[in-house]
């Protein structure tokens, strides 16, 4: 099993300092749990956030030095020597951050993609069992054919940061062919404005019932039924 984790030159949204996005750290954790060789992959020059990401468990990171559409550069690099598994976070932090890169990459490579992955199992017959995190803590089991792209859930377990790993990372630059350039996004920037909160009946229907002073046994039964309906207690 060979896994590749896609890394961005992350930036912390509060401080503006280099910081790997939470989802990419979770992706490293998933890659480590899959076993086998794990490497990082970044399009662009080595960035400070990459070293920090390595501290979470990457021994080596390849930086692809080419100009143009990163999706094209990644697709060309990955199809030259395809790994079994490509992992990414849900979205980068600090660039244009559309969250579309894994999907565009999957489309171009023709690989399957699953998003919101919180855990992965062991491969059987070329299929990889994965667990997907859904809202309200629900979990869904799925399986996906290799090679594939997985986007880690932001809340998937994150491996701890180890300074000793961060300082030992082998970061090498790979010169690659330039790809077609993409036009910069056009648009206007305006300050963030808080949207009105959803209240009352406009809130998403979570199901459930309101019980007024119920009998404890009745209340417990209703709670259990509700949790089962959400898939949090099994069948």
């Amino acid at each position, binding site marked *: 099993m060979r896994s590749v984790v896609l890394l961005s030159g992350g930036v912390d949204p*509060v*401080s503006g300092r280099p910081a790997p996005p939470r989802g990419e750290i979770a992706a490293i954790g998933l890659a480590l749990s899959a076993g086998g060789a794990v490497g990082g992959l970044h399009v662009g020059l080595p960035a400070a956030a990459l070293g920090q990401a390595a501290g979470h468990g990457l021994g080596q990171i390849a930086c692809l030095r080419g100009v143009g559409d990163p999706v094209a550069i990644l697709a060309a690099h990955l199809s030259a020597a395809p790994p079994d598994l490509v992992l990414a976070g849900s979205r980068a932090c600090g660039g244009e951050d559309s969250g579309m890169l894994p999907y565009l990459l999957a489309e171009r490579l023709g690989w399957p993609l699953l998003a919101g992955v919180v855990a992965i199992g062991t491969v059987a017959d070329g299929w990889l069992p994965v667990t997907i995190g859904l809202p309200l803590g629900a979990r869904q089991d799925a399986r996906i054919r290799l090679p594939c792209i997985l986007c880690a859930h932001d809340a998937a377990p994150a491996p701890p940061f180890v300074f000793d790993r961060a300082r030992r990372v082998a970061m090498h630059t790979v010169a690659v062919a330039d790809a077609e350039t993409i036009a910069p996004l056009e648009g206007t920037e305006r300050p963030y404005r808080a949207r009105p909160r959803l209240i009352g009946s406009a809130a998403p229907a979570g199901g459930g019932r309101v019980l007024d002073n119920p009998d404890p046994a009745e209340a417990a039964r209703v709670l259990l039924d509700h949790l089962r309906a959400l898939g949090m207690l099994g069948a």
Partner: protein
Amino acid sequence: MRALIAGEIGGIALAAVVGWLVLLARWLKGRPAAGWLAGLRHVPRRYLVDVHHVVARRPAAARMHAMAAGGVLGGSALALLAVLLGAGGIVWALAALVFGMGGIGALLVWRRRVPKMPPALSGGAFLWLPAALAAWCVGNGLAALFMAIGAPALPVILSVVLGGLGGVALLRLVALGPMRHALAGVAWLAGHTRPGRFSGKGRDTGLRPLDLAAPRLGVLVPADFSGPELAAFDACIQCGRCEEACPAFAAGQRLNPKALIQTLSGAMRAVPPPYAGRPAPSVPMLQGKGGMGQPIVGNVLHRDMLWACTTCRACVEECPMLIEHVDAVVALRRGQTLMLGATRDGAAQALRASRERAEPGGRDLAARGDMIAALDVPVLPPGGETDILLWLGEGAFDARYGRTLRALVTLMRRAGLRFATLGADEVDCGDLARRLGDEATFQSLAAEAISALKARCFTKIVTADPHVLHVLRNEYPALGGRWEVQHHTGLLDELVRDGRLRLERREGARVAYHDPCYLGRYNGEIDAPRRLLDAACTDRVEMARHGMRAMCCGGGGGSPVSDVDAVTRIPDLRMEQARAAGASLVAVACPGCTAMLEGVTGPRPEIRDVAELVLAAVVA
């Protein structure tokens, strides 16, 4: 007869020297320490002055130790002298007298644990110590006496046999622990890792920078400690003064400094002698096999023991062997954090925020000045110049501590001082990261802070946070940042002394001052806050534990972010001590202490910072 006595005493002394060399061979497997054995020349002074200064805080223990140690060493030396010089009865009589004093010392050693053993003392092999001491002193003392009066051979031989048995027992007690302190103490005092404690100001509390390029960062196995530190662990006499002073132990947290040091001593050995003192509360015994290359944490030392320490140095202050417990804790934490990433979840979050946001709480640096925004304190741009740089610290994000900062700024304005802050260029000083063992994050924060400070001109730094004070004053110089750093109580004390602030004593509350560890024990500043309070309040009382021996609030060393299990809370214990002193108001001088003591629930004395009390008393 002379040859017999010389053979007996000399033989035991020689065996003790060999024992010392055996121990030394083990300590030398630790990291090398420069000039260690050359430090042997300092030992007599360090032993007779510095060790005795601590021992003498308990006069009964000091008497016991002086008589027992003096009797054993002095009597043996005199007896050998009598043999070698072929001296007459006078020297023998003197030796008998000194041995007799040692015998009384042995009696006092026995009385220490009989009829009732104080809980902080260790039992086990220690129960045999008085008998061994008594046999050595009485046997050799009688032999000397018989030599002095010229008695026949038989009584002398019997006495020498008794003394010899005592000597063998004492040597056995070196291996078992109780007598090891005598041998290991010499090596530790010779190579003490903080020589600054013995000279000049008598204080040396800053942590040493770590070379981040070294292959092994911090301590994972006993051999990662330096040789003298290993000797320090063996030098522990298990007197339990540290555990009596430890706030974490008192609160039922999983730490006992004595058990920690004993565990580290045992960690060097495949088969350590049994420990017969109190363990750390609720810590399961680990059955791992020790050895110089065997991991310590998780093998022989439970990992919870590491994270409960508040780094308050109360144990260090009390230790008669001058052992540096906090250095050992931080060295072990460095190994766990830097090499393994094995911190507690809460601590990992604080460290991540320190790395990525330069602020352990993860808050926006530009929001630090919000609490004093209404006072329009100027922000000093790079290249700017002012008299005093006001370092706000982490407490500035807290609304409660904002009141203290506003009081301080108001007082500084009244005194006509010219000052400014760093604004959003003030990063965290790195105190929390460093105490949690993350030396890498500390050094990067420190480098950023130092470059921000070097870009500006000012005469001194003033801060209301003793942790900042300690880091900037005592730990930045090793990284190239040297400035005059003053705590706000020191500054206000100067202003009152110079008449730039005039105070009128306010009647009302009975005030007790709670010393912050990082101001008192770490920096020795215990008088200025008290002078201020005496000038501002009519009624001041002292808690039983105050000044250099004050009890911690529980807020230091990253303990609050480390999810530490406890039976009770440390600030609750401290507040109980304030109540016992009859205080209706506790004066504090640290954002950590303020938050911890204000967190005590139920009816309790009020909490006010010294600056707030001074502001309430200022008349001009």
